[in-house]
């Protein structure tokens, strides 16, 4: 028992550094997914046929292929093909970001489409361009409605980030595996890894709940 505790304590600083890397991957991926997802959702709702088609294909592709395959495909294949020499960390952020963009775009699209049509009409009637109307009227509301779905997506991407291990990114999973295979303390180390993911999920979900209530529109119920 003591030995187990000691093994965990000894590895903890190393694993916590891994947690920072994991946090970096998740923030980078979720941020990229947010920026891409908002544009894709707007394109899918308000764009012309070609735009809708391209977004549709993108979503279909990234939802259809396992992340593990995507990681290998991009890191060892496509990035090299276009002459992009990326670190394992950057590649992980990009691949996870592009994947979550596909899912996030559908969260935002659902939120946009659930808003009453009349507000866009009213914005146009005031002389706003569609772009101004989308930015000032539609998105602030759609993003608020998206927070629960986004929080869910955060917890998924956090856990998927463990896959970055296969590229050699030194995040939580890679570091636990490294220590475990050297010290043979498999059980305590993977339990610690599990706890770290659990804690990060909890913190993120709580923070997003806080955000959700902070930006709640007074008097608004749905």
């Amino acid at each position: 028992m003591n030995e187990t505790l000691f093994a965990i304590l000894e590895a903890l600083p190393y694993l916590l550094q891994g947690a920072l890397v994991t946090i970096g991957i998740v923030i980078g991926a979720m941020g990229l997914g947010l920026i891409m997802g908002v544009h894709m959702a707007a394109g899918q709702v308000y764009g012309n046929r070609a735009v809708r088609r391209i977004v549709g294909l993108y979503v279909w592709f990234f939802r259809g292929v396992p992340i593990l395959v995507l990681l290998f495909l991009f890191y060892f294949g496509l990035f090299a093909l276009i002459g992009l020499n990326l670190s394992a960390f950057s590649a992980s952020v990009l691949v996870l970001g592009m994947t979550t963009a596909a899912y996030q775009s559908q969260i935002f699209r659902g939120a946009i489409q659930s808003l009453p049509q009349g507000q866009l009409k009213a914005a146009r009637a005031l002389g706003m361009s569609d772009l101004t109307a989308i930015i000032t009227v539609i998105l602030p509301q759609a993003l608020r409605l998206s927070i629960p779905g986004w929080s869910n997506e955060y917890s998924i991407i956090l856990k998927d980030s463990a896959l970055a291990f296969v590229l050699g990114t030194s995040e939580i999973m890679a570091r636990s595996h490294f220590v475990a295979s050297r010290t043979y303390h498999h059980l305590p180390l993977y339990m610690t890894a599990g706890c770290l993911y659990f804690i990060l999920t909890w913190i993120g979900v709580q923070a997003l709940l806080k955000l959700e209530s902070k930006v709640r529109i007074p008097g608004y119920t749905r």
Partner: protein
Amino acid sequence: MTQGQGPILRVENICKMLGGKKILNSVSLSLNKGELKVLIGPSGAGKSTLLQCINFLIPPDRGQVWLEGTEVQHHRKRDLYALRQQIGMIFQDFNLFDHLNALENVSIALRKVKKMGRSAARERALAQLEQVGLGDKITLYPAELSGGQKQRVSIARALAMDPKIMLLDEPTSALDPELIGEVLSVIRDLARGGMTMILATHQIGFARTLADEVLFMEDGRIIEQGPPAELLAPNARTRSRDFCSKLDELYEENL
């Protein structure tokens, strides 16, 4: 701009098909400065579609719109946005921006469209809300306002843009009866102040006292038009008169 004696708004031969059905069948009308024309007719006649064709929220299939003698080139985005700034529109179900309070609802277009500074826009919005009797409600959100208050905010929002014309699409139809009066009184003040307006409504009593002209619409056409005293006179043998007496039977009008 040629701004002689002609009408401020002229609409000619507007046609619109929707879902394979002729919703507007060559509708024309013109509006002089300061006039209030009231658009009546059964539900489904095409009143909402007509009003939204005037500012191209619904693009007509055919027809022209002239504002102050200049034909609107609605395919040019800049012209289109300029036109819409000059035509205020009030909707049956208010269409306030749910995430903004009353003051922000009124000031947002001043800032984003008219590019006014934050404090100038705020001042203007405040004055406009005071004009419709909501000076003490400026920090409330749409979900915290009654229907009548929401509609008054939406009127303030349109007026803040200094429109030359207002189009009002059944502004009191979504309201509880006891709230209709406060909205009608704002519209009455506007009419007395010389605002040029087209008002679609079922409030016939109100129309009778204020309208310069009544337009009766049915099946996508304006089939009768004239001063209310003629069209709606008790002994007039017009479709408008028949329609209004039916309405009168349905609702007890309180105005």
